[in-house]
């Protein structure tokens, strides 16, 4: 007896692309959702900076001389002030984001602007105290320019770059007391006037860093524009794909209709003759008509199966709505639908299925169960039997539904290929001339979309068992207590 486990792993991750309305959106800011998620990230990052500042302060308490030597800290304890300001500001940002009602002055954009301004002021204080030209601290301004380019429009990011330039210039002026030049007239101490060499040093740093700030602004804002334009194009392409998908579905529906309509007309006429609406017909003609009808029915089934397969392929688990599906009810519904075929072959159905619920795409689970049961009927011998059983595992993990027939079975060589599209097995085809090879492909796609696995065990001339593995199921509240007694255990002897 051959046995094969079919496992179709499918990622549940979905990429949701923002849909921009016009190309001008590329130059605009990002959406509020993206801004909010980044604001939260900045707040976390700021808590990290606050932690680092507290650590500096602790080290300063332990070894004050070392930090003063490296100009990391002065005697005036600025880290405490900065830590407090950043901490209070961070709490305020969180309050504005989570607790306060959104309004004209409480938008993600305003929140982000406030964060940048306060951060720049704090950074300027740090740069002032640890040195505006002697340490790499001023380079942290670049980080703010880059972030502004990413999250703001080009114009707003330019404003941030200008603000950074002004702040750094101010820090330089204060540090080099160049501002004193302006206060000479106000009789401020003239001794503070610097010599030419220091002035040149300061001017060199001011010009060099200003060039750096605006170069970074130009490059990052340009890059940001390119990225946003690509994002826009991607969203447009996504929209076009959806539209094309819709048109494809419409076309498939139209083709299905056009192909099936003549068959339906032929079969309707046959039904009229069969029903005696066209008078008495010789038995020989009736038999011939039945044969024509059978082939037309198979053809019509194949046409509808093609449409089903096409639709299932297009429906991914991300776009379809999932709902709790009662598997016991689904099995009974499918049996009900298949009753005419069951009657034709006089198949006995033994059903013992516990009530359990699986969260999946209802239509597709029904198609899956119906196709497996239909398969069991098709490949059973006349007057044969089919068993449908369930096996509930502990905690609802890996609950199974097994459909077993005692029909022609599957050769071990064919077993790994049975779910392949249009797979043709001469043995199966000789038993069922109407086989299209689509039925199990439909099962495979439905299983894939619903995260189900299927085990197939088969032995030629003995029969086949399809076991659908439900990874996580629930039990109805009303039946859980009486689960053992509520097991559906019926034997349907079809007439």
């Amino acid at each position, binding site marked *: 007896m051959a046995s094969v486990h079919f496992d179709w792993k499918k990622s549940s991750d979905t990429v949701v692309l923002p849909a921009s309305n016009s190309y001008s959106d590329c130059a605009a800011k990002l959406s509020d959702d993206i801004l909010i998620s980044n604001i939260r990230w900045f707040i976390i990052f700021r808590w990290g900076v606050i932690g680092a500042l507290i650590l500096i302060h602790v080290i300063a308490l332990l070894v004050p001389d070392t930090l003063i030597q490296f100009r990391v800290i002065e005697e005036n304890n600025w880290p405490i002030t900065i830590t407090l300001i950043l901490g209070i500001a961070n709490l305020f940002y969180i309050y504005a984001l989570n607790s306060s009602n959104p309004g004209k002055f409480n938008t993600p954009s305003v929140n982000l602007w406030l964060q940048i301004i306060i951060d720049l002021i704090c950074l300027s204080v740090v740069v002032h105290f640890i040195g505006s030209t002697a340490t790499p601290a001023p380079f942290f301004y670049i980080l703010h320019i880059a972030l502004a380019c990413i999250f703001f429009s080009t114009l707003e990011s330019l404003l941030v770059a200008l603000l950074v330039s002004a702040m750094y210039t101010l820090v330089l002026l204060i540090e080099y007391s160049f501002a004193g030049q302006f206060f000479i007239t106000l009789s401020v101490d003239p001794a503070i006037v610097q010599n030419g060499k220091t002035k040149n040093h300061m001017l060199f740093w001011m010009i060099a860093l200003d060039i750096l700030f605006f170069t970074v602004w130009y490059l990052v804002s340009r890059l940001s524009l390119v990225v946003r334009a690509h994002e826009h194009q991607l969203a447009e392409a996504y929209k076009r794909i959806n539209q094309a998908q819709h048109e494809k579905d419409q076309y498939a*529906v*139209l083709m*299905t*209709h056009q192909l099936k*309509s003549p068959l339906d007309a*032929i079969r309707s006429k046959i*039904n009229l003759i069969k029903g005696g609406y*066209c008078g008495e017909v010789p038995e020989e003609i009736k038999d011939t008509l039945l044969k024509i009808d059978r082939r037309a029915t198979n053809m019509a089934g194949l046409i509808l199966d093609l449409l089903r397969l096409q639709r299932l392929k297009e429906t991914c688990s991300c776009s379809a709505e999932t709902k709790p599906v009662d598997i016991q009810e689904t099995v009974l519904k499918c049996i009900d639908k298949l009753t005419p075929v069951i009657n034709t072959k006089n198949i006995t159905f033994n059903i013992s299925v516990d009530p359990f619920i699986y969260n999946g795409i209802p239509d597709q689970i029904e198609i899956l169960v119906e196709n497996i049961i239909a398969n069991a009927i098709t490949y059973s011998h006349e007057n044969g039997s089919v068993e449908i059983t369930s096996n509930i595992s502990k905690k609802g993990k890996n609950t199974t539904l097994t459909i077993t027939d005692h029909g022609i079975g599957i050769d071990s060589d064919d077993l790994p290929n049975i779910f392949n599209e249009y797979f043709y097995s001469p043995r199966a085809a000789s038993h069922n001339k109407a086989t299209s090879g689509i039925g199990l492909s439909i099962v495979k796609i439905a299983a894939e979309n619903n995260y189900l696995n299927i085990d197939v065990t088969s032995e030629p001339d003995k029969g086949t068992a399809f076991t659908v593995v439900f990874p996580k199921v629930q039990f109805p509240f009303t039946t859980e207590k009486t689960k053992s007694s509520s097991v559906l255990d019926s034997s349907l002897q079809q007439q």
Partner: protein
Amino acid sequence: MTKRIAHVDDDPDIRDAVARILEKNGYEVEHYLTMKDFIASLEQNSNPPDLAILDVMVESMDAGLTAYAEIQKNHPSIQTIFLTSLGDMIRQYFDKESDKWVCVMEKPVEPDSLLSVIEDRLSQSSNNQTGKAY
């Protein structure tokens, strides 16, 4: 009183099959080639049919669905049955509420099931009217 049934389908063979079955079973059948003709007849005639059998894809892909919406809105007393080649595949075009009570039959025309569904729908209609009278 003879029940009047309107049948809209662009396929002459289907129209013929439905007419033979229904007329032989005592119904009065009116045929329409397009939904437009049927809706126009409803507007002109003060005595609407008891039941309407609609195809879905007649003059356009969703003409049957549009006509159905209009009948529900302006002539709620008319019972409606969809008789379409696509069968249950059209259910996705209905919202969840209406999915429960919209009657969809798949072609070909099968005399026994067609008659049984029509009788069922007409008896529902009679029950509703009796209920209203009380």
